[in-house]
């Protein structure tokens, strides 16, 4: 499963994501689902604790698109066990965003476009994100600062698994295309 890092005019993250999505879909040749952050409100509002939020989302997946991991496995691989009984609204901003991303990446999508995932996340959270993104479908990350992802080096051990080489893409406002390796 490929991971792409898309360099684009940063304005598209805030204002042009619908057209960017179409260009990414044209490049990948498949439908793309979009993750768009809503900092610090990444919460359904229908649950109190992290445990309830995860349970709510996992039990409400469509029947034809079951979650990639069920509750216990999800909690384990996303390193969330220590936070299950905390109120979602009491999580730090970074952890709340990470929880929202984890739930998004637990959906069985063929391709996803992730906008501004790196703001507020530490390197440790971003490494987990890349490892999990590599497990299913293709992921396209579009960041204000792509270097925050590109500078990370994969682990390659059991405790710090690797992710595939990140493939650079470029968007010129009309078409998304690959970037030739120098």
């Amino acid at each position, binding site marked *: 499963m490929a991971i792409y890092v898309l360099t684009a005019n*940063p*304005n598209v*993250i*805030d*204002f042009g994501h619908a057209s960017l999505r179409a260009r990414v879909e044209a490049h990948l040749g498949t439908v793309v689902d979009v993750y768009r952050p809503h*900092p*610090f409100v990444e919460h359904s509002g229908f649950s109190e604790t*992290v445990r309830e939020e995860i349970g709510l989302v996992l039990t409400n997946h469509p029947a034809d698109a079951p979650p990639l991991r069920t509750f216990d496995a999800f909690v384990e691989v996303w390193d969330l066990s*220590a*936070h299950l009984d*905390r109120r979602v609204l*009491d*999580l*730090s*901003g*970074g*952890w709340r965003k*990470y929880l929202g991303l984890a739930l998004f990446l637990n959906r069985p999508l063929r391709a996803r476009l992730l906008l*501004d995932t790196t*703001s*507020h*996340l*530490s*390197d*440790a*959270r971003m490494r987990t994100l890349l490892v999990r993104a590599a497990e299913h479908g293709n992921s396209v990350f579009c*960041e*204000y*600062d792509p*270097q*925050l992802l590109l500078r990370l080096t994969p682990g390659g051990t059991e405790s710090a698994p690797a992710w595939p080489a990140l493939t650079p893409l470029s968007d010129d406002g009309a078409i998304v295309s690959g970037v030739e390796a120098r």
Partner: protein
Amino acid sequence: MSLLHLDGVSFRYGTDAPVLRDVSFELDAGASALVIGDNGSGKSTLGRLIGGLAQPSTGAITIAGEPLARVPTRQRPSRTIYVSQVSYLQFFRATLTDEIALAVHQSGRPAPGADDLAAFSLPPLDTNPRDLTYPEMWRLQLLLLGAIFRPRVLYIDEIVAPGVTEQQQALQHLLSRRHAQQTVTLLAYQREIDVAFTTTITVTGNRRG
């Protein structure tokens, strides 16, 4: 005398274990500090305490020798301001010109000069603030709360896109101005950035999540 002094500051949410435990440090006038910590380490909590938005469970914070807890709320912005990660939600005027005018009125400080405006790389001043990108909103907050309000202590909770030239330029300009004004500036982030600070503070508080 130090300008900002934290003495044995601890903080806990409700009955949870303390997020911050026995934090002590001093910063002199003109200092700038990069506050580094992982997600959930207590960076934002530290900022709320220094910004006077929460009271330490134990310990004390003083600014220029004055206990922060005794500063009346209406006088607090001249002493200390916490720039939260969602402070852009406070934009409510129709244009950048209006937001700047409001900050000038509220702070009683002079309007920013052309060099200030240029350093923050903002779009045309008749733009609606809600039409700014996230990095542009961050720069506008720096202009309003840092450059115009000019509190003695400023705590900026994270930088958006730190590798982007306009972001670095705005921050560098603000740090330079505030150094000359003999104020203290703290920026919390998860990692080092390519902007020079006079000191680094590492936060390793209880992993609150």
